[in-house]
């Protein structure tokens, strides 16, 4: 832990560090991301508010230096007491062997330093308590001096060997833990679908493995580095930390806490690098403040971040490619729409232009019926263009909300008759059978709009079902509403298309060959019916595996409900 960081943050390191940052960051306006501003207002989650008490059980985490001192003291004390009790029974030299046991125990428990300490204490205790003259540090017999130094030599060598053995075992355990953690991390990452899941896995796993608060920052769509995931969730960043994170991204070096670059930040930041680019920035702060970022344990951080880099890179590419697919699809729709509109307007225009120029330049070579037919085709195509324009105009009125809706009792038979008459101006042979249930209550709505809806439905039936097949119009009361159905005997509509046919510009089939239309008729019908407070739906097949039925349901006019 850097002194500098500790000092500069002394004013904010209260019992709840993240709370402190909420307060501080709220006064800062230079942040470039509104998203991050809003995160600052979020209250810290109760679980991770104080990391030190939340996740550090004191009993299990005795500092190593404490062990290194206490174990030799206890061991040497115990051996001295035991040796003193049996000193009359066994030879003096054997007592020194007991001290060797204390050195070995200390070495295994506390390492090299502990072994040295135990050897020194043993030297003093052995001399003081057991070597004549007792109760002094002087030695009477010269050979005792030799024996003592031999003891110290043996104790040091034994202790060192034992300590090394203990260190190696610890290293092997650590290695195994790292490998397991890395393997586990890799397994979790590959099970994470999507960028968000990968980022959450990354911060969660590394945070738990290292006992640290962790976060990952990625560039958002505007290219601003912003916090994407954190462990515990909901962490926020002080301004210095944001600068440090950005520096880590731009300079591709570790920054922040315990580094040379912006050490006053309360997190350390590491760029997560893929082969070509910085895919994200990883931020962490150890839960135990004095645990250095460079401590042994963090050896696992680098391989974990490498794993994360691959997973994040992959997820980002997947997301980019999904976006590209969406935009390709929308471009395709746009171009299909344009080509459809262009075709629907250009065909009647071509026919009008062709007929008019033919009449003018070749009219005197044509007989009267031919000239008459050309004139009539001009009229008809002008009518078709007029309907297209009216459709587009209606659609615009629905979408802009400029529709004025009348809510009056409707004379259904008259409205149906007017719509049928309009269809017959286009196709005089249009066959339709109309029937009304007895005692039909009056529906409420707008007569003009409903006539347009019916006309669109009947015109569709004519175009898609063929005019030789009779179309049935039927009205009845149903569940307190008036339902009006239009049923054709055409091929019907696939179940998957029944809702899509109401989409704007949706048209079944493709290419020039389909019947002329803007793909707006049903969309307008739904817009109008909805505006009148009713519903419209399609059912197919209508009967005997054929045909399509459109059902309009309108509310019953007030005072008419039965």
């Amino acid at each position: 832990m850097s002194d500098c960081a500790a000092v500069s943050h002394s004013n904010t390191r209260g019992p709840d560090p993240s709370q402190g940052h909420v307060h501080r960051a709220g006064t800062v306006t230079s942040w470039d991301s509104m998203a991050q501003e809003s995160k600052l207002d979020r209250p810290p989650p109760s679980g991770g508010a104080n990391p030190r008490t939340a996740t550090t059980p004191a009993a299990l985490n005795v500092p190593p230096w404490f062990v290194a001192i206490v174990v030799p003291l206890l061991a040497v004390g115990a051996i001295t007491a035991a040796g003193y009790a049996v000193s009359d029974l066994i030879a003096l030299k054997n007592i020194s062997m007991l001290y060797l046991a204390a050195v070995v125990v200390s070495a295994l428990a506390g390492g090299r330093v502990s072994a040295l300490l135990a050897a020194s204490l043993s030297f003093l205790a052995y001399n003081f308590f057991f070597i004549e003259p007792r109760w002094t540090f002087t030695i009477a017999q010269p050979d005792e001096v030799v024996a003592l130094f031999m003891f110290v030599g043996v104790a040091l060598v034994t202790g060192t060997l034992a300590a090394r053995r203990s260190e190696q075992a610890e290293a092997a355990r650590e290695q195994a833990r790292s490998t397991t953690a890395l393997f586990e991390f890799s397994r979790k990452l590959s099970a994470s679908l999507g960028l968000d899941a990968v980022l959450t896995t990354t911060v969660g796993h590394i945070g738990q493995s290292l006992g640290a608060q962790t976060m990952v920052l990625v560039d958002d769509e505007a290219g601003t580095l912003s916090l994407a995931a954190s462990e515990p969730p909901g962490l926020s960043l002080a301004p210095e930390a944001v600068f440090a994170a950005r520096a880590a991204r731009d300079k591709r070096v570790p920054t922040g806490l315990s580094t040379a670059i912006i050490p006053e930040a309360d997190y350390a930041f590491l760029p997560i690098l893929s082969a070509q680019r910085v895919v994200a920035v990883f931020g962490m702060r150890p839960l135990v403040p004095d645990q250095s970022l460079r401590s042994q344990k963090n050896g696992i951080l680098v391989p974990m971040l490498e794993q994360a880099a691959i997973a994040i890179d992959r997820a980002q590419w997947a997301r980019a490619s999904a976006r590209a697919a969406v935009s390709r699809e929308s471009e395709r729709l746009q171009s299909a729409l344009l080509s459809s509109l262009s075709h629907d307007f250009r065909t009647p225009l071509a026919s009008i232009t062709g007929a008019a120029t033919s009449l003018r330049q070749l009219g005197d070579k044509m007989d009267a019926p031919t000239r008459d037919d050309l004139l009539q085709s001009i009229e008809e195509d002008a009518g078709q263009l007029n309907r297209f324009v009216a459709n587009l105009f209606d659609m615009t009125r629905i979408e802009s909300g400029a529709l004025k809706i009348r809510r009056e009792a409707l004379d259904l038979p008259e409205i149906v008759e007017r719509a049928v008459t309009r269809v017959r101006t286009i196709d005089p042979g249009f066959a339709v059978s109309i029937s009304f249930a007895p005692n039909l209550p009056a529906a409420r709505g707008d007569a003009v709009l409903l006539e347009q809806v019916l006309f669109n439905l009947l015109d569709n039936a004519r175009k898609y079902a063929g005019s030789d097949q009779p179309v049935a119009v039927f009205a009845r009361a149903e569940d307190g509403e008036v339902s009006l159905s239009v049923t054709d005997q055409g091929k019907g509509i696939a179940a998957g298309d029944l809702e899509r046919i109401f989409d704007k510009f949706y048209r079944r089939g493709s290419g020039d060959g389909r019947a002329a239309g803007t793909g707006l008729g049903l969309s307008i019908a739904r817009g109008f019916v909805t505006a009148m407070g009713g519903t419209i739906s399609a059912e197919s097949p209508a009967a005997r595996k054929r045909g399509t039925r459109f059902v309009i349901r309108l509310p019953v006019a007030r005072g008419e409900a039965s």
Partner: protein
Amino acid sequence: MSGSRILVVDDEPQIQRFLKPALVASDFEVLTAATAREAMRLIATRSPDLVILDLGLPDSDGKSVIAEVRAFSRVPIIVLSARDQESEKVEALDLGADDYIEKPFGIAELLARIRTALRRGTGGPGGVADTFEFSGLRVDAAARVVSRDNVPIHLTPKEYELLLQLVRNAGRVITHRQLLTSIWGVAHADDVQYLRVAIAQLRAKIEADPAHPRLILNEPAIGYRFAGE
């Protein structure tokens, strides 16, 4: 020319409705087809002198009709298309269509295109004639001499080939790709800038006012057309 048999392939009844009487009134014999299959049958059995083909057909892409017809017949094909379908037009022309006309069109323009295409088909003037003269420009293919108002014009071999190609197809559009392939070779089929430079040099030598060309006309995004008639 009159009396020629024309096949109109279009699935829009409105188009057939005016094209047929207009062509009949211009002394053509008219066959009609609404599908690609019907069109192929009529081309094979009735040998029309010219085909007017809409590119959007219900049973097949009009372009595939062109490819199939070209496998056994050199009958002139005029494509009906919309203004916003440049790539369609270029593909149709590269597949062997002779010309195109955009909807909506006046009948006079269509008749002019039909006459140009029929002349080519029968090997008349504008076909493989050895000399060509238009508005003061004279190209003598036999002597390889080009002159304007009887003043000889010096052209590089590439410019000469380009001009010859254009005048031999006078009145008819030739795509960039067709010009590039026949003059520079297949390897340069997409190097439109070669063509732009050569056309600019050619215009500077043969046009009265190169800034407002009257002989070599642009067909934007498609190719060039030498003013015919």
